[in-house]
C-alpha cells in the first residue's frame, strides 16, 4: 500500500438546511488518478471547494501530506501543493497566454509574495522556458502572445490546465475537465491526461463522461448524497450493483 | 434629559434627508445595479427646483413706489402681486411647499433623461466605469447650476406661518426651553410621508412587487417576460423624484448651493453602506440613526472628550461597519460583494 497523500475525514457541510456533505471519508493514494463520480448535486464540487479552502466545513478534517488544511487560506493550500482546474475556466482573460502560465510558475518559485519590482520580466528566462514548454505540451504554443480572453472555451480550459501543471502540484484537482467540450477536444484532453498520468502526479478528477473516467482512472469513488457509497478499481465499480442502482439508474455500462 | 431629547430632534430632520437620499440611491442600486455618483446632484437639483420656482413666481416689473412721495421712486413688484394682490403675496410666501408640485414633473423628467441618455448604457459595464461616468455627470450638473445660479448659497425662506419655532418642550411637558423650528418638524413629517408612500408603492402595487422582485433576482424577473428595461427607467425616475423632493424641502434648512450635491453624495453612500447595500429598510434606518448620531457628536460635552468627533463620526461608523459587518445593518449577504 502506497502513501496516502490526501485524507478527508468525517467532513460535514450544510447550506442552510441542506446537507451537501455528510460524513465524507476519502483517502487518496499518492501517484494515482482518482475519479469521483456521482449524480448531480451529490456534493462533488463542494468536496473540492472544501479541499482548496474555498469553503470551510462545519466539522471534520482534511489532511494533506500529514498537514491539516482546514482553516488555511486558499493561497496557503496551493503553496502546500494542491492546484485546481475549475468547472468554468478561471484564467486571466486580460493577459497573454504566456503571462497566464508564467504567473503560476512564479508562485511556485517565489512563494505567496515577493516584491521584485525592479526585475525585468523579459529576463526571467527560466520561467519563460518552463511556461513555453507546458504550452507546447498542451498545444497552445502557437498563440503564445494572444490575449487569453480571446480563446475558445475548450482552449481556455486547456490553458487553465497548463496553469496548474506548470506548478507541478503534488495533487491536481480537475473539476469536469471535459464538460461542454466537443468530442474531438475531449479526446485531446484524454490524451493529455494520459500523458500527465505518466508523470506520477496525484489527481482527483470529477467527471460525468464515463468514457473519460474509465480510460484515465486508477481508482473510482462514487459520491451520492454527500457521502461515498462505493470505492474501488474501475472493474469493481463497473460490477457493483449498488453503484448501478444509485447512480447509473440500473443501466449497464 | 431635555438636552438629549433636543439632540434626537435635531438629528431627526437631518436623518430624514439622509434617509430619503439613501432610499433613492438604494432603489437605483438594488434594481439597476448601478453605482450612481450623480445621485447627490439629484438632491441638489431638487433644492434648485425650489429656487427656480421661487424665481419664477417673483418675476417682477418695475412699478412706482407709492410709499415714497417726494420723488419718483421705483420698486420691483412681482406680477403675481400685481395681478392677484394679497393672494399673489400668499402664493409667493408658500413658494417652497408649492414647488413640490413643480419639482415632481421636473425631477421625473431629469431622471428619465439621465437613465435613457446615459445610465442605461452602463448596466453591463464595470462598477468602476459606472462610478466614473456618473461622477463626470455630477460635475457637469453642478457646474451648470453654478453657471446659472452663481456660486453663493441662496437662502430660501419657509412660509411665514412656520418660520418660528414650535414649543415642543411645553407641549410634551418638558422644559419650556426646548423649542424646535416648525419647518424642521414639517420636514420630518414630510420625509416620513414620502418614505411611507415609497414603501406602499413597492409593497402594495404589482408594479412595485416586480421592482422588489427585481432587487432580489434581476435575471429571473427578466426571464419572466416582463419589460425590465421600461421598469428600470421608471424606477430611476422614481428615485430621482424621491431624492429631488428631499432637496426641495431641505432648501429652507440649508440654503442651496451648487456643491451641496457632492457634500451629500459621500454621506448618502455612507448611509447606504451602513444600512446595507440593497436594503431599503436599512437605508431608512441608517439615515435616521446617523442623523441622530451626528447630532449627538456635535454636543459640546462629547466634543470636549473627543475633539473633532462631530466632523468624522459618520465616516468612522462607515469604516467600522464595512470592516466588521460588510453587508451593513440590514443588508443581505452577497449583494455587491465581489
Amino acid at each position, binding site marked *: 500500500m502506497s502513501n496516502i497523500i490526501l485524507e478527508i475525514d468525517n467532513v460535514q457541510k450544510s447550506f442552510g438546511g441542506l446537507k451537501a456533505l455528510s460524513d465524507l471519508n476519502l483517502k487518496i493514494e499518492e501517484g494515482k488518478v482518482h475519479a469521483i463520480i456521482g449524480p448531480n448535486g451529490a456534493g462533488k464540487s463542494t468536496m473540492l471547494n472544501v479541499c482548496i479552502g474555498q469553503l470551510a466545513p462545519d466539522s471534520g478534517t482534511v489532511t494533506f501530506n500529514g498537514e491539516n488544511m482546514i482553516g488555511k487560506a486558499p493561497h496557503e493550500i*496551493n503553496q502546500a501543493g494542491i492546484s485546481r482546474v475549475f468547472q468554468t475556466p478561471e484564467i486571466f482573460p486580460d493577459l497573454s497566454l504566456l503571462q497566464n502560465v508564467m504567473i503560476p510558475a512564479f508562485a511556485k518559485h517565489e512563494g505567496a509574495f515577493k516584491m521584485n519590482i525592479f526585475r525585468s520580466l523579459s529576463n526571467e528566462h527560466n520561467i519563460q522556458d518552463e511556461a513555453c514548454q507546458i504550452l507546447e505540451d498542451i498545444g497552445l504554443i502557437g498563440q503564445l502572445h494572444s*490575449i487569453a480572453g480571446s480563446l475558445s472555451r475548450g482552449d481556455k480550459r486547456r490553458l487553465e490546465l497548463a496553469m496548474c501543471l506548470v506548478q507541478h502540484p503534488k495533487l491536481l484537482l480537475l473539476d469536469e475537465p471535459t464538460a461542454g467540450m466537443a468530442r474531438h477536444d475531449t479526446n485531446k484532453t484524454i490524451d493529455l491526461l494520459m500523458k*500527465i498520468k505518466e*508523470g506520477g502526479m496525484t489527481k482527483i478528477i470529477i467527471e460525468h463522461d464515463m468514457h473519460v473516467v474509465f480510460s484515465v482512472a486508477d481508482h473510482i469513488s462514487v459520491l451520492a448524497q454527500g457521502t461515498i457509497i462505493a470505492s474501488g478499481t474501475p472493474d469493481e465499480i463497473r460490477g457493483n450493483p449498488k453503484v448501478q442502482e444509485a447512480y447509473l439508474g440500473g443501466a449497464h455500462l | 434629559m431635555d438636552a438629549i431629547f433636543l439632540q434626537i430632534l435635531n438629528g431627526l430632520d437631518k436623518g430624514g434627508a439622509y434617509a430619503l437620499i439613501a432610499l433613492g440611491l438604494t432603489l437605483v442600486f438594488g434594481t439597476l445595479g448601478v453605482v450612481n455618483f450623480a445621485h447627490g446632484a439629484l438632491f441638489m437639483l431638487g433644492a434648485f427646483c425650489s429656487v427656480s420656482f421661487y424665481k419664477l413666481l417673483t418675476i417682477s416689473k418695475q412699478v412706482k413706489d407709492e410709499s415714497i412721495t417726494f420723488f419718483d421712486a421705483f420698486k420691483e413688484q412681482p406680477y403675481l402681486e400685481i395681478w392677484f394682490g394679497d393672494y399673489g403675496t400668499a402664493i409667493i410666501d408658500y413658494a417652497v411647499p408649492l414647488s413640490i408640485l413643480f419639482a415632481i414633473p421636473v425631477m421625473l423628467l431629469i431622471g428619465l433623461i439621465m437613465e435613457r441618455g446615459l445610465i442605461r448604457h452602463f448596466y453591463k*459595464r464595470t462598477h468602476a466605469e459606472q462610478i466614473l461616468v456618473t461622477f463626470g455627470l455630477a460635475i457637469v450638473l453642478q457646474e451648470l447650476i453654478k453657471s446659472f445660479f452663481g456660486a453663493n448659497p441662496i437662502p430660501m425662506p419657509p412660509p411665514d406661518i412656520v418660520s418660528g419655532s414650535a414649543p415642543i418642550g411645553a407641549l410634551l411637558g418638558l422644559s419650556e426651553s426646548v423649542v424646535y423650528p416648525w419647518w424642521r418638524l414639517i420636514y420630518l413629517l414630510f420625509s416620513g410621508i414620502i418614505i411611507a408612500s415609497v414603501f406602499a408603492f413597492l409593497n402594495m402595487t404589482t408594479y412595485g412587487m416586480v421592482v422588489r422582485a427585481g432587487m432580489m433576482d434581476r435575471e429571473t424577473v427578466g426571464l419572466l417576460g416582463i419589460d425590465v428595461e421600461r421598469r428600470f427607467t421608471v424606477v430611476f425616475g422614481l428615485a430621482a423624484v424621491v431624492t429631488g423632493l428631499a432637496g426641495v424641502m431641505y432648501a429652507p434648512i440649508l440654503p442651496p448651493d451648487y456643491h451641496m450635491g457632492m457634500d451629500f453624495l459621500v454621506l448618502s453612500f455612507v448611509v447606504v453602506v451602513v444600512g446595507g447595500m440593497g436594503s431599503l429598510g436599512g437605508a431608512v434606518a441608517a439615515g435616521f440613526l446617523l442623523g441622530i448620531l451626528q447630532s449627538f457628536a456635535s454636543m459640546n460635552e462629547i466634543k470636549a472628550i473627543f475633539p473633532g468627533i462631530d466632523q468624522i463620526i459618520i465616516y468612522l461608523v462607515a469604516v467600522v461597519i464595512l470592516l466588521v459587518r460588510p453587508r451593513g445593518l440590514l443588508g443581505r449577504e452577497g449583494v455587491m460583494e465581489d
Partner: protein
Amino acid sequence: MKAPTIKNDIFVMLIFSAVILSMPVWLEPLGASYPDLLQKFAIFGIFAVGYNILFGLTGYLSFGHAAFLGVGSYTAVWSFKLLTMNIFPAIIFSVLLSGLFALLIGFITLRRSGIYFSILTLAFAQMFYNLAYSVLTPITNGETGLQLARTDPRVIDRLFSEAGEGLPSTDFFGLAMSGYSGFYVCAVILIFAFFISQRIFHSPFGVKLRAIKSNQTRMKYTGYSTRPYLLTAFVISGMYAGLAGGLMAATDPLAGAERMQWTASGEVVLMTILGGVGTLIGPLLGVGIIKYFENIFSALNEQGLHQAYAFMPDWLANIMVPMTSPFVGEGWHLTLGSLFVLIVVFLPGGIMEGINMFKKLFSKKTSEPDFKPIKKKTTPETVK
C-alpha cells in the same frame, strides 16, 4: 502583448527624458512654455503616474489619493518652516510620511474590494479633509492654509546664515525652485518617477498586479497572497502622491486643505483615464492635455471667445460665443466634467486606445500577413 525587452525600455527612457527636458523648447510655439505651467505638468505628471500604478495595474479605484497629496504638501511646508528651505529633506519627508499614511489607510481599506474599497477611501478622504479644517488647525492652519513666516525657526538654515529681511524662497542646494530651474528639478524627478513606474510595469510584480485586476480569485488559488501585493501598490502610489504634494509646496510654499478634497482625487482619475488607464505613458498625456487646456480655457472670457471665433462669419460667431461661454473661464470645470463623461462613454481606454485603434487600422492595410513563427526555446522536445 510581447514583453518589452530591456533594450527597448532604455530606448523609451532616453526618448522620454529628451522629450520632457526639451519641453520649454517644443511647447514654445503652443504658448505653454512658461515655468509655472511646465512645473504643473511635471508635478501632476508624477501624481498621475503614481496613481496609475494602483488604478491602472490593479483596477482599485481610490478617491483618497488627494489626501496623500495634502499630507505631502503639509509635510513639506513644515520642513521649510522648521528645518530648511532646501527642498531635499522636504520631499524626502513628504514621501515617507505620505507612505506611512498610505500604509495605514491601505491596510484598512484593502480589506474590501470593488465599490466598497472606493467608498472606504472616500470616507477616509472626507475625514482627512474635515479634520484638516477643524481639530488639526494647529498643524494645517485651517482655512487660511499653512504658510511660511519670517519668524519660523528654520534650524538648519540658521546654522549657516542669519534670517533675511523678507520671506526666504525654496531651493534645491542653491538651485532656485522658481522659474525654469524649478521646472528642471521637477522634470528630473518626474523622469526618475517614470523610470520606477516603467520598471514596475515590466517586472514580474507588475504582471502579478495586472493578474489581480484580471482575476483575483484565480490569483488566490494560484498560491498568491493578494493583499500584500495590493498594499504595496497602494503605498507606492501614495508615496508618488506625497512626492507630488511635496513638490507642489516646493514650487509654491503654501498648503491648503482644499487640495485634499475627494473631488481633487477625481481630477487625477480623469487625467489617468483620458490618457489611457494601465498604459505607461497615457496618464502623462492626460495630464498634459488637461493642464494645457485648463490653462487656455480658464483664461478665456467672452472677449477672448470673440477673438477666437474671428475667422467665422459674424452671425455664426454670435451664436457660438453664448453657446461656448459657459465652458470657459470659471466654467472650465464644466468642460472637464463633459470630457470625463465623453471619454468614459466612448473611449474607456483613453487616448492610448484611440492611438492603438488607429495603428491597427493602418497596419492592416499595409501588411496583411501578420503571422510570425515563434522561435522555439532551447527546451528538450520530449515530454517528461
